């Protein structure tokens, strides 16, 4: 199948999914009506280039994609990720699966209300220092404005903006637009392809006696709320989505659980509605959680490192 045809089939399939799960579409925010489809596409394309551009970090060593790697469903496989100063990260890198549908974006309650605001946290944050651009915001704009390819794209993406088009605000707006394209709704569970008996048994436990869906609520398998699920945590953290959970180890806010098995067993009955589960129950639950893997999401060229950087 050629690439364009493949894209067409994928988009028709995606629309069909939204038709069958009407509740899914309503979760994704829509762009302002003043933004044309063509502009939005350019903004997403620009955002993808910026997402993979390490010049957004102090020494050119880290891009958004350094921590959010597609093959790990946009996590990185580490407990936490050190920043440009080699300071330890504080939290486990969350997946970006369907992040455009989420209203709450941080492990704990912080005044971050949009993907645009969130993009500034790794770039300019200091607790911890990640990309190291605190007080270097103008340097980010200067680096991008020195690139004729970016100048063209910013002009196309923001044609009606008066004044400086290459600003921190438009940079984060473009990155957020790309992040909103990161939809993952083609797992085995969604399309019932290779959906085995073991996975179905696990689904029954997940939605039944396991009470897992109380907090890991479909369609995104998170209620986006804060919960303390065991005594070790000391406080409540945001329920993570379970979409692509098979690929996003290690688990919990601090990456302290290496496997899904450990993560399931890390839910204490005293703190949650999860009852004591048998080994068989946990086995089937793991199989069900594997069914939430969306291989299209982690291999789609639409989300990957662009073939060419903006030069």
């Amino acid at each position, binding site marked *: 199948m050629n690439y364009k045809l493949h894209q067409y089939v994928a988009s028709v399939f995606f629309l069909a999914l939204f038709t069958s799960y009407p509740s899914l579409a309503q979760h994704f925010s829509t762009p302002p009506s003043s933004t044309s489809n063509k502009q939005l596409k350019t903004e997403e394309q620009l955002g993808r280039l910026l997402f993979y551009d390490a010049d957004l970090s102090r*020494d050119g060593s880290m891009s958004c994609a350094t921590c959010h790697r597609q093959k790990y469903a946009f996590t990185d496989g580490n407990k936490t990720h050190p920043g440009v100063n080699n300071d330890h990260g504080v939290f486990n890198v969350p997946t970006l699966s369907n992040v455009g549908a989420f209203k709450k974006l941080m492990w704990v309650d912080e005044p971050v209300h949009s993907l645009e605001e969130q993009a500034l946290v790794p770039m300019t944050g200091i607790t911890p220092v990640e990309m190291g651009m605190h007080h270097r915001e103008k340097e980010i704009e200067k680096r991008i404005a020195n690139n004729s390819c970016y100048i063209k794209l910013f002009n196309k993406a923001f044609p009606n903006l008066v004044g400086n088009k290459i600003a921190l605000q438009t940079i984060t707006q473009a990155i957020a637009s790309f992040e909103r394209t990161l939809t993952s709704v083609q797992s085995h569970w969604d399309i019932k392809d290779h959906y085995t008996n073991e996975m179905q048994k696990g689904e029954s436990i997940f939605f039944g006696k396991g009470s897992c869906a109380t907090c890991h609520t479909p369609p995104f398998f998170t209620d986006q709320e804060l919960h303390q699920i065991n005594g070790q945590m000391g406080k409540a953290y945001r329920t993570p989505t379970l979409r692509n959970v098979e690929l996003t180890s290690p688990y919990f806010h601090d990456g302290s659980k290496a496997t899904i098995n450990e993560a399931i067993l890390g839910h204490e009955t005293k703190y949650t509605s999860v009852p004591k589960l048998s080994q068989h129950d946990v086995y089937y639950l793991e199989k069900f959680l594997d069914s939430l893997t969306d291989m299209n999401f982690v291999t789609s060229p639409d989300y990957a490192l662009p073939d060419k950087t903006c030069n």
Partner: protein
Amino acid sequence: MSISWQTPTSVLSSHQKSNKIEISIGKAYSLELHNKSSVQFAVRPQEPGGRISYAGLVSFNVRQVGTYRIITNGRPWIDIVQKGKIIDAKAHQHGENCQGAEKILDYALSPGDYDMEVASSGKKKIKLFIIPVL
């Protein structure tokens, strides 16, 4: 870690695959890199790095099958390439408190020649050490 790590041999990395710079296993190097724009990679790095970052190429030979650990005092992206294909690390860790070893990668390698593509480095010079893991 051996004294070799404290007294590394200086090496200038290569700009391109055709100009091979060989390094040895079991010896520490202070590897000088180049501006990213001047380096031609045989295989595009998984993390290309920004325009202001540094990059370079070296080669090494493995004689015995086993796990080999690459230790650096920076956080460059490292791709090990053989016959045009990137070999994924089987483990990676953050080595912050171990005498400046900031990044530690383990690879399962069989005998043969390998290219190491160093990219996305914030430092022009990095220490680099490859050792067999017993």
